[in-house]
């Protein structure tokens, strides 16, 4: 199909005003289905392109920056597929959650108006409808832009283009958090913007160093041999730091618990599973593939940094009382796995790391959806106030268990397939190099999986098992809009776990090529 990737990236952007108008004039349901339809169509395009092997498209752009292109190869396709699949599924899930949120905010604003004006105002139902319509229009428009920003980043073939998409996904993210988040949402939205923007600036610095030295920003022109060693090293470090902020690895992670905790849940379910992992994509593409010599020097540091992040994130997750903050720390720990896999510097380790992105997207997607259902149906997200919900919301509980197993890496969920391949890669390098540091890291990494299991099982126990507190006696199962998307992902996790070739068939040959195996 001609212009396939161009369509996949730009259709959502071009049609986002339509979603806005639809929401505003007609209501949230048509806007939701419209968004869903666009994303479904573009997802099919993406999957179709992925099935036909490597797809490349190039379009003329400016003289200075080079070409504007899209590339979908073995590296990009799993990322692209997961991003759009999640976006599509979450569009449906968004509706009940966001309507719940709009109602809440409407009441809040009414209260403020009420106390300001001092008169008793009769709440008109049409005012609420208008409010919800307007907000949902805006929400779905931003949602589409957010999704396309993520896809654009992983398909970009040019440093500047990469940077632009990188920022494009940030801006709607900021608005989504600042407008409909929980708690001090504006402050947290700004924090999100500042942190990731600061990261992006460092990233841009790295890009400029490469681009200006080589005189071209096209991926195709990046040859490490033409770069002076020190420039290559500086730019690689800058890129790693810039992307490290996005990945929320240890020391750069502090924005993430706030943002994931505050963001509206469907957005958390995109931020954590899909967005932050794009940092790993960037490292794969820009450092592992384009700067292999520099990478081989940095790999051990990635390995250790990843290990520290794994353990640190897990330990902090144990200490949380807020369900969404808990999931956020778990995401930090999981991003540590990705970085650990990248640092293993073997084809299998890298393939495992990419597989971990896929499985984390599935597992964490399920878990955030679970959190959303609990927020809507129970109204609290504090572990100390939850418990025994399995009997009240069985579907959510089953899906949550599958999601947790996916994160823990227990077969037959997809998590195991990522994990063992990744650890195998780590072991391979450790033995081949005879490196004690790597061998110890391998061991500690495996121990960290036991830590992951502990915090996940403890979470399940505190939310779903044990005695049902008095105030939760009347809790109901979430609506089908919310449970069906979750069930789809849960099923997907098991399918991938038993038949991982769906992704491995593209990932492994690519990684073998990159590592020259």
């Amino acid at each position, binding site marked *: 199909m001609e212009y396939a990737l161009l369509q996949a990236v730009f259709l959502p952007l071009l049609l986002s005003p339509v979603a806005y108008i639809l929401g505003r004039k007609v209501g949230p349901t048509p806007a939701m289905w419209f968004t869903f339809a666009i994303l479904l169509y573009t997802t099919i395009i993406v999957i179709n392109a992925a099935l036909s092997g490597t797809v490349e498209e190039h379009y003329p752009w400016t003289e200075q920056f080079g070409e504007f292109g899209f590339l979908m190869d073995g590296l990009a396709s799993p990322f692209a597929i997961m991003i759009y699949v999640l976006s599509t599924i979450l569009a449906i899930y968004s509706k009940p959650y966001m309507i719940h949120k709009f109602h809440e905010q409407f009441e809040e604003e009414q209260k403020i108006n009420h106390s300001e004006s001092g008169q008793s105002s009769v709440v008109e139902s049409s005012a609420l409808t208008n409010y919800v319509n307007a907000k949902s229009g805006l929400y779905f428009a931003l949602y589409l832009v957010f999704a396309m920003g993520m896809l654009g980043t992983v398909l970009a073939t040019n440093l500047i283009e990469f940077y632009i998409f990188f920022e494009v996904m940030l801006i709607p993210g900021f608005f989504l958090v600042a407008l409909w988040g929980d708690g001090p949402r504006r402050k947290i939205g700004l924090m999100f913007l500042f942190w990731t923007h600061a990261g992006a600036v460092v990233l841009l610095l790295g890009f400029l160093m490469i681009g200006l030295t080589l005189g071209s920003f096209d991926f195709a022109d990046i040859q490490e041999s033409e770069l002076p060693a020190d420039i290559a090293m500086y730019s690689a470090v800058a890129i790693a730091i810039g992307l490290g902020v996005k990945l929320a690895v240890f020391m750069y992670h502090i*924005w993430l618990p706030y943002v994931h905790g505050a963001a509206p849940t469907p957005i958390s379910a995109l931020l954590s599973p899909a967005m932050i992992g794009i940092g790993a994509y960037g490292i794969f593409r820009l450092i592992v593939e384009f700067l292999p010599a520099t990478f081989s020097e940095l790999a051990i540091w990635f390995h250790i940094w990843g290990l520290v992040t794994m353990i640190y994130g897990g330990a902090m997750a144990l200490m949380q009382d807020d369900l969404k903050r808990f999931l956020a720390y778990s995401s930090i720990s999981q991003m540590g796995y990705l970085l650990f896999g990248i640092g293993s510097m073997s084809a299998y380790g890298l393939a495992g790391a990419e597989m971990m992105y896929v499985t984390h997207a599935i597992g964490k997607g399920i878990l955030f959806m679970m959190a959303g259902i609990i927020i809507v149906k129970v109204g609290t997200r504090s572990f100390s106030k939850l418990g*025994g919900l399995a009997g009240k919301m069985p579907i959510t509980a089953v899906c949550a268990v599958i999601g947790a197993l996916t994160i823990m890496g*227990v077969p037959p969920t997809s998590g195991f397939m990522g994990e*063992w391949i990744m650890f195998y890669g780590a072991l391979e390098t450790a033995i081949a190099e005879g490196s004690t540091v790597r061998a110890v890291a391998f061991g500690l990494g495996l121990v960290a999986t036991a830590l992951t*299991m502990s915090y996940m099982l403890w979470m399940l*126990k505190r939310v779903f*098992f*044990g005695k049902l507190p008095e105030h939760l006696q009347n809790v109901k199962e979430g609506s089908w809009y919310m449970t069906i998307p979750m069930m789809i992902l849960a099923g997907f996790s098991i399918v991938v776990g038993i038949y991982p070739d769906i992704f*491995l068939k593209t990932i492994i040959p690519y990684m073998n090529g990159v590592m020259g195996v």
Partner: protein
Amino acid sequence: MATELMGFEIGTLSAWLVWILPFAAAMIMPGIGKLSQNATKFIAVGFALMSAISAATMIPVALEAHELHHQIMWIEAIGLKAGVLADPLSIIMANVVAWISFLIMIYSTGYMKGDKDITRFWFWMMFFIGSMQLIVLSDNLLQVFFGWEGVGLASYALISFWYRDKKKDHVGTEGRTVLGMLDYYAPTHAGMKAFIMTKVGDVMMIAGMLLIFLFAGTFGFKELMGNTDWATAMAAQGLLVPAFVLLFGGAMGKSAQFPLNEWLLEAMTGPTAVSALIHAATMVKAGVFLVARIGPLVFALGAAGILADQFFEIVAWVGAITALLLATQGMVNPEIKKVLAYSTGSQIGYMMMALGVAGLSHQYVDGYTAGFFHLISHAMFKASLFMAAGSLLHIVGSRFMTDMGGLRKHMKKTYAFMWAAGLGLMGAPFITTGFWSKDAIFAAVYESGNEWALPLFAIAVLTAIITAFYTTRMIGLVFFGKKSKHIEKMEEEGHPIHEASVSMWVPYGILAVLTIGIGIIGLSAEEGLHHTFEYYLKNSFGIYSSHAAADESSILPEFLQGLNPVALGASLVAFATGIGLGYIFYIGRWVDPVKFVNSNIFFYAIHKLFLNRWYLNAIVYWCFVTTPLWLARGVSRYFEKTAIDYGMNDGVQKAASWGAKVIQGTQTGVSQSYLFVFGAGLLFVVLILLM
């Protein structure tokens, strides 16, 4: 085996069906449950039966010492195949698992009657059986690991089956603490403990698997045996023994061997049918099976000059330590299911000891057969004992033996069957399977000719005495003596004690009868097994066993020819001592055990040590739960929330607003000062230009 169906040989098809059928039943269970909860039990029992029949159809293959090996493509990207390997070992194991599971499923229909979560129960039971059969019949380690984790997952779900944490479903004594750690566990806690603790073993196992895969490039058992260059390469780097020991780590976790044994006791929070399944057919037997699976490989490598004796030494010693450690605790515990759980761990220790010692002797097949024979006989009597104990719990409504007593007149069938199965556990001479299998282990240990033979043998005999003692104690406490206050109260309230329902007593009756029935022909059964394994080891691994010339001067009567007189004598003495002591305290009640223990400080201290589980459980909690949580809390409070959160969020924000204030200070709005600065700047520029 020429018959074919859909391109499969019949036997091969069976090997797939044995484990796919239970999974299929699990998959359809939620749907069936939606239609009719009543139908779920028929599906469960029916599929369990079909799986068992599939297993039975493979028996001729085992008797002919054939092998069925069938593979399909699985993960093409890495070139991994999935497959089934039905050799005598796995076929015998599959049959033990399938038939005992089938009986337990029948028992469950009575035991779980009226539970409103019954669909979930059947789902996990079938999942459990399927996972276990997957372990048994897989032809490669990665696929085994799927079953391995599936077993762990199912045990987690079933141990915490009564997830509402009602008081009656807890184990331990409420309010009792050991070293500051509560010795009282809710089902959800117990499930978590089991899953995490076995995961520690699994982590070791996967490390071992990956090490082997790294050198061999395959997970397949046949492939590993086919070309042993990988072992040479690993041995050269000193990684062969560590890899096997790491694999054994997985077995330690699943089989509750020291030091990963503590989860097994809390696993008693599950429904008793689950305990029976865990202890007799699935889960804890998985570890023994794994050792039986890889043991011959290690031994064959040793025979080929790639020595890994330390592996067998570790297996034997871990088994011996566990056997004694858990048996001692079984002597003092007041809860009937816990006594049985301790007993399981201890008996599994015997099996490990036998499998370990086998590798240290020249007659590998002797120890191997002994260990495996004990696995089979233990599966029968332990399943029977657990199910009988479940009936008691069901009827008495208490897990404490002190709440029972004097039940022999009310529950005659259970009483009789419990004696039969209990005699099996004690190893009552000549009539029980337990005797023959235990005696075989004694003989294997004694004859191994290894430097460790004598200490191991002493431990084995000591454990046998204790085993006979605690079994007698259990039966004495439950069935003899006066009725407890609890029972009198029940009877006053109009709940007389009665026999369990038919669907419950028949399954454990069958197994109890089998324990005695096979026991009577025990020696020839063992010889048959020995024969089968001898061929199996020879054909598949090239392990030959040299037949020692029959001992001419044996003092034994004719029907016991071929037995080792020392081992035989030791078994007899151990049985008599144990049951005699038990009789004095708990059946004859000539001495009051409480007074006896309190009579002097030494007995008191020992009793307390055993009751507090050698303090191991508390130590595990202190080291791996309390301390890490304390550390994490410290890091969270003093690093995450201060250095990182405050320093990098609020700190940057404060610095920025402070900077803004400084600059703001210059914006005075007074035109004179602006003019002054402007003038100074101008002067500065002019000066620079002039210079």
